């Protein structure tokens, strides 16, 4: 088991958002997380990656307890979280961002090779190496965000709503890229509202409602339309 979350509780100020949450991700597995807004998905990711302190329970990654570890240490261990929204660094260039992605010591030696692989995966980034990030489109920024994460040689990649605000064509490109990454053996945890997208990239889906897991099933068996309607009104 690569990532093991047990009985996790966390919150902000006086509010507890996560209640006794259990989750696991195995090596080379892609797990999809979904659920209504404000019910803890982003909080869960932030608690795992160390931005939000855990109040109870534990998080283990590759055998190491990272429940109270700092974000820098978690990145060093190979757990990379790509946050929601993809503003990145508006005034830096694409090349600079990718170079910064290779900040962890172990990733620096293979920076050139990794950059080549990222540009293979997202050819658009290769064309825009010297462009400033604020000049990129939403889809390009999202690709860059994922590319930057890949530069750190993650063992587990966490994506928070990668298709948020993106057009269907770009979503398709992203889905293809993520599937390619999964095929290459990278473990991933993907949070998404778009159940069809999620079903296409993740074999196992987990539903989070009010801060804990209420449903866990292979994506093939889930009736996407029914769930979308139940939680989000008519399927978009």
């Amino acid at each position, binding site marked *: 088991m690569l990532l093991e979350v047990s009985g996790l509780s966390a919150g902000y100020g006086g509010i507890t958002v996560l209640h006794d949450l259990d989750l696991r991700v195995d090596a080379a597995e892609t797990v999809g997380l979904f659920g209504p807004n404000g019910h803890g998905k982003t909080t869960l990711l932030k608690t795992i990656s160390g931005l939000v302190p855990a109040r109870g329970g534990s998080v283990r990654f590759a055998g190491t307890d990272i429940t109270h570890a700092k974000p*820098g240490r978690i990145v060093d261990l190979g757990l990379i979280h790509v*946050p929601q929204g993809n*503003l990145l660094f508006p*005034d*830096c260039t694409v090349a600079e961002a990718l170079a*910064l992605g290779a900040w962890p010591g172990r990733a620096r030696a293979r920076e050139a090779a990794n950059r080549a692989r990222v540009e293979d995966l997202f050819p658009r980034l290769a064309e825009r190496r010297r462009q400033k990030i604020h000049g990129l489109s939403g889809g390009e920024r999202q690709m860059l965000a994922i590319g930057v994460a890949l530069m750190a040689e993650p063992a587990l990649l966490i994506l928070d709503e990668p298709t948020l605000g993106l057009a269907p064509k770009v979503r398709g490109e992203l889905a293809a890229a993520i599937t390619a990454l999964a095929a290459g053996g990278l473990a991933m945890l993907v949070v998404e509202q778009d159940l069809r997208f999620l079903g296409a990239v993740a074999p196992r889906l987990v539903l989070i409602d009010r801060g804990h897991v209420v449903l866990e099933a292979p994506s093939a068996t889930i009736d996407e339309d029914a769930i979308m309607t139940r939680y989000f009104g008519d399927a978009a």
Partner: protein
Amino acid sequence: MSGDALATIVVSALVLGSLYAIMAVGLAVVWQALGIFNFAHGLFMTLGAYVAWQVASGASWGLWPGIAAAVAASAVVGAIACELLVRPFLGRKDVVLVAVITTLAGATLIENGVLLAWGGRPKQLPPLSTGTVDIFGAALSAHEATIVAITPLILLGVWLFLGRTRTGAALRAVAQNHEAAALMGLPAARLYALAFALAAGLAAIAGIFLGAIRFMSPAMGGDPLLKAMVVVIFGGVARFAGPVAAAYLIGLVEAVSTYAIGLYWTPSVLFLFMIGTLMLRPQGLFGGARR
């Protein structure tokens, strides 16, 4: 105006501009990295001058060890100031105001510390080089010529560091998106301290420049800080080129004004110049300050 007078003005403008450029770049680095204005910046200059004096004249180890010690000491104090006076408040909505208060307190602390350690009597640093140089009819000391010559190199070095090194990019990144930077493993606290240390080191160099031209006193940093403030108001703080260009421009204005109107009224002229610019262009002459 005679050719000699013109040459004197230009030379004076270059010397002043060099000093102001080094000071302003330090302010700009801190502003870009942390989003605050450091009112203790003048005191980093003062501290640098005094440490250099102590090593060079007090202990008689020579000027170059003095310079090295001054830059190092100032950088360390800068990093400490960042950690104690600024970083604890970075999340607050009113961080700019709080930082003014705490860095002012820090400035008071350093100034009185210097007063306690070295006393109030004026001192002077040995010049970087001795003798005089004649340029187009204007006489300037070798020390001043060295200042004018070295400053562009220093500025170039800082520019290259910020724009072309991984650490420089990390500094800029951490300022633009704190959360994303944290999730990439960029060490925010260390980078902030680095920005402050860099600014303080630059101020120390300016202090060493100034300490041989004018008499050193614990309050010596006040006027340069004020001028540097005018420079960054003018030139903005968002880009590197803005403050640098503004620094030399202000140097020129000051040189011309001192020649034409005299020393007493020059501060008023500068201030009016600044006010006038701000009323026409609130974002400074070289604009773009989005913070």
